[in-house]
């Protein structure tokens, strides 16, 4: 193949093709894709291939706006969201498109995510409050949280479960049972939430073989994350929390977690001094 592409508006896609059970081994197939508009993304290129050149190509996507996390794949050895990466980020005009490594392939660029979500489920990714179970099961009101308490975990809640961090992690490469950066990051997402009281339950899950301590802070998850979640930061915080718990230092006032209270019931009477609402100018909508 020529060293340079012939036309600045043509992109050469070298795409990984493989159908387990049918193909003996993977192969790469080359397609030429025109730049249809300046902001055209890798995903649009793949859809162009599907619609015009080769309908047998399998690629998974849904939102095409970096929200659903379906379209994660590798281009030229880098983990990206196909819908969130412009073709013009590749001035050489050549793209080697592969599915995420460290996952089984369903077909072509699609990877099987069952294990990934299974690991996510294992860390109990929801609010736990064994302290007042009645409120969790039959909620009466919201929990009160200050903006600065929100900032403690907000970054970690931006995760879209694309799985790129898991594909980039060197521990995942040799340990299939390792929970992986996404699940371990989720522990800090909930343990640092002032509304959650399940810290010890989650620590029990991750302070175990194939858990927290199989992370050796390679930082590849943070480097690759397309949403800026910084899983490595979250995981190191959980290590610190685990050490504090092991040394019983979590009982010190400095490290003790204060549970967010349930909001008080609304006051029955309006505050004095507020003028009454003006007369209605339109009739009340009929109850539907």
């Amino acid at each position, binding site marked *: 193949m020529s060293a340079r592409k012939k036309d600045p508006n043509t992109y050469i896609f070298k795409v990984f093709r493989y159908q387990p059970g049918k193909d003996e081994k993977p192969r790469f197939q080359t397609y030429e894709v025109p730049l249809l508009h300046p902001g055209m993304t890798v995903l649009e290129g793949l859809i162009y291939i599907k619609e015009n050149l080769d309908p047998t190509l399998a690629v998974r996507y849904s939102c095409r706006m970096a929200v659903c996390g379906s379209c994660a794949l590798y281009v030229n*050895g880098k983990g990206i969201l196909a819908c969130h990466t412009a073709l013009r980020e590749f001035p050489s005009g050549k793209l080697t498109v592969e599915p995420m490594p460290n996952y089984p392939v369903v077909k072509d660029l699609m990877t099987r995510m069952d294990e990934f979500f299974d690991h996510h489920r294992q860390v109990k990714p929801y609010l736990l409050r064994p302290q007042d179970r009645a409120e969790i099961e039959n909620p009466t009101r919201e929990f009160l949280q200050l903006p600065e308490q929100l900032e403690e*975990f907000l*970054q970690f809640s931006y995760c879209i479960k694309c799985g790129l961090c898991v594909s980039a992690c060197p521990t995942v490469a040799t340990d299939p049972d390792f929970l992986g950066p996404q699940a371990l990051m989720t522990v800090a997402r909930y343990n640092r939430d002032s509304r959650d009281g399940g810290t010890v339950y989650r620590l029990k899950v991750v302070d175990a073989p194939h858990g927290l301590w199989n992370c050796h802070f390679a*930082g*590849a998850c943070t480097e690759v994350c397309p949403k800026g979640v910084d899983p490595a930061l979250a995981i190191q915080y959980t290590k610190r929390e685990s050490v504090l718990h092991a040394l019983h230092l979590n009982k010190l006032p400095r490290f003790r977690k204060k549970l967010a209270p349930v909001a008080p019931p609304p006051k029955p009477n309006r505050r004095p001094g507020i003028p009454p609402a003006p007369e209605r100018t339109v009739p009340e909508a009929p109850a539907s």
Partner: protein
Amino acid sequence: MKDRRLGIRGWIYGGKHNPERFLYTLHRLTGVLLVLYLSVHILVVGSRAFGQEAWEGAMRLVGLGNPVVRFFEYLLVVVVLFHAVNGARLILGELGFTIGRPRRPIYPYPKESIRKPRPLLWILMILAAVYLAFAAYNFFALPA
């Protein structure tokens, strides 16, 4: 192939490469080398317990003073120093020091946990390199 799990290759390859990801592999490699060295070291030094003969035999076997052996001794210093210095960085980071705080993920992303301790990483590596340069002088330029 169906799984596409990278295996040991994944310790070196796998996505965008940040320096810390290579140190992961290097730390493991030096750790294993240290375990191997320590086992041999204990066996060799332990030979003293079997009398002067055994000790001198072991010393001859090891061949101290031989330039090749001396070079490997220097490599040992490199391995120990890297493992210790990088280990100090890891201990700090993994206990939640030096790595920053959660921030709003506004583009370009802060990536605090790897960007914030990176100056510390370079300073530690430069200090180690300076130490190793002196050690090299001590090892090879000065008479043994």
